[in-house]
């Protein structure tokens, strides 16, 4: 499929996607959002003690997800990040493929641009296929979702699937209303640790 054909298929809006990813969650879903719009999206879906918003360290969201998934094997860790954020550290897919946690989902909200900085194109609109990269790194469940129907099929796996579930969701490159999550990581850190371990 050419890049032009791909773009004409894209219809999903980022907030709708994130709302569905975390719908009806309990304390068994631990969410990490990557820098920029995914943080605003996760905040817009409703602040939660089991959310950790990574508002810095671009490229570290999936790595944090790996540590959290290994530390909390009975719960699902969900990393929600952007294509630009993940492109900064593709090596982490190799590390995750080898470490093979049984409970880690990574969702890439792929708008094919660096939205926060003026919508400059990222590599994903120009031939780089993140799901193929993930598969080549040993992550067997790796796919790209273009439509609501495909998202419907992917959602149960993202929330409950075995192993590492890597999903690229192609989204429209539109900005949504800015919703700012708590910005102090000391707060969100203590909140999640306390909820998980009973100690600060």
């Amino acid at each position, binding site marked *: 499929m050419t890049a032009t054909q791909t773009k004409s298929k894209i219809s999903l809006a980022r907030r709708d996607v994130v709302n569905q990813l975390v719908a009806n969650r309990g304390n068994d879903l631990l969410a990490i959002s990557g820098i920029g719009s995914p943080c605003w999206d996760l905040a817009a879906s409703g602040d939660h003690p089991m959310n950790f918003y990574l508002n*810095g360290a671009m490229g570290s969201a999936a790595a944090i997800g*790996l*540590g959290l998934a290994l530390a909390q094997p009975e719960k699902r860790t969900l990393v929600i990040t952007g294509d630009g954020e993940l492109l900064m550290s593709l090596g*982490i897919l190799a590390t995750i493929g*080898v470490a093979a946690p049984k409970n880690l989902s990574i969702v890439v909200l792929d708008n094919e641009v660096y939205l926060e900085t003026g919508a400059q194109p990222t590599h994903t609109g120009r031939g780089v296929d993140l799901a193929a990269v993930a598969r080549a790194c040993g992550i067997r469940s790796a796919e790209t979702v273009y439509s609501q129907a495909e998202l419907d099929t992917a959602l149960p796996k993202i929330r409950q699937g075995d192993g590492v579930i890597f999903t690229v969701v192609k989204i429209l490159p539109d900005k949504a209303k800015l919703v700012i999550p708590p910005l102090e990581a000391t707060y969100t850190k203590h909140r999640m640790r306390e909820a998980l371990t009973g100690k600060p």
Partner: protein
Amino acid sequence: MATTNGATDWRDQIYDIFRANDVRHVAHVPDGGHAKLIKRCEADPEMQTVTLTTEEEGVGMLIGSWLGGVRGALLIQSSGVGNCMNALSVLKHGKFPLLMIVSMRGTWGEGMPWQVPMGQATREVLEAMGVIVYEVERPDDVHATIEAASWLAFDSSVPVAVLLAQRLIGTKKFVAAA
């Protein structure tokens, strides 16, 4: 000085300190200076050892481990410290602990000039990012230094790096084959 388990080799002592302080996640980029310690950790079914492609992944991973209530340690070479800088910002901003054990290159008697710039800058760049730095040069000091670094990191929730000096590890000599 031997640990409570009686280990006299400093590499075994570090492993014993990990056990005594409930360090269960060990992330590393392999290095000759850490080779024996990595083997000990990999052989321990209660430890999760993760090989990284680059050192900054380990900083991120151990932030996640701590969020999930697990203590970890990062084993890297001094050259890899340079790969960690922006990830370290999360530790300072969020008051996260980190126990980082760095085997040094580019310092004592280094024979590979490419290693010198990063080795010489290691302490300075760590301190610039808010990491507290200990250095150990003598085998007899390893146990006390790693133990103190572990207590400082996890009890006071700060990032701490222990530099294992090239004088301790042994300087790597490069001799071309005849």
